[in-house]
C-alpha cells in the first residue's frame, strides 16, 4: 500500500488529507493523472511531489510503502 498526502487547496479539492491506495510500480506522472482524474485535483502541473519527504521527479517510480505528498506552490516565510 501507499499513502498519499494532500496539502493546502489540494486537501480541499481532494476532500481528504490522506488517502491509502496501492500505486507501487507506477511513476509519479502516472499517479498525477490518476489523482487528477479520480480525485478532482486541478492545476496538477504546477504541483510538486515528494516521495518519503524528498522532492520527486515525474519519472520516479513509486515503491511499496512509499508515502507520496502533493505539494502545491509553497507560500511560507
Amino acid at each position, binding site marked *: 500500500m501507499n499513502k498519499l*498526502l494532500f*496539502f*493546502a*487547496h489540494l486537501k*480541499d479539492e481532494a476532500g481528504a488529507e490522506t488517502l491509502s491506495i496501492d500505486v507501487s510500480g507506477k511513476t509519479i506522472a502516472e499517479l498525477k493523472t490518476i489523482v487528477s482524474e479520480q480525485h478532482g485535483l486541478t492545476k496538477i*502541473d*504546477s504541483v*510538486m*511531489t*515528494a516521495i518519503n*519527504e*524528498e*522532492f*520527486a*521527479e515525474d519519472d520516479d517510480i513509486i515503491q511499496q510503502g512509499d508515502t507520496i*505528498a502533493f*505539494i*502545491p*506552490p*509553497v*507560500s*511560507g*516565510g
Partner: protein
Amino acid sequence: MKFQISKEPINIQQVIDQVVQREAGAITTFIGTVREITHGKKTLYLVYEAYESMAVKRLEQIGKEIEERWKGADVAIVHRVGKLDITDVAVVIAVSTPHRADAYEANRYAIERIKEIVPIWKKEHWEDGQEWIGNQLETVAYSKGEPEAKHLDE
C-alpha cells in the same frame, strides 16, 4: 533544535541564542510578520499549514547549503504554523558569521530558499473571503540550486 516548525509563538531570543559563536562578529535575523495590507487588500488573519516532517528536513537542508556557501556560518530557523494575527511573527531566521556582509547575504538566501522548497502554505482571510496562497509561478521540484531571481518579493 535549530530547525523547527512551531505551533506556539516564536521566542526570537531563543533562535538567536542558537547561533551565538565566539568566531562570529555579526548575527542577522529575518523576522517575517503578518502585514495588514497586501496588494491593496486588507488581511484579517492568516493560517499557516506545514507538511511538518518534510518542512523540518528542508529547513535543515537550507542550513547545510548556507554552511557550505558561507564559511563559518551558523543558522537557525523556526517557522510558525496555525492562526496568526496582524504583526504576529511567522518565521525567524538567525545567521551568524565572522563578518557582516556574509550574515546579510546568507540570511537573504535562507528566506528565498524557504519560499521555494519548504512545504508551508498560508491561507489569507479577508473580510470577503479566504484563499490558499501559492507563489503563482510555474513551479518545479528545484530541490537544489540558486533562488530564482524572478521570485516574487512579497
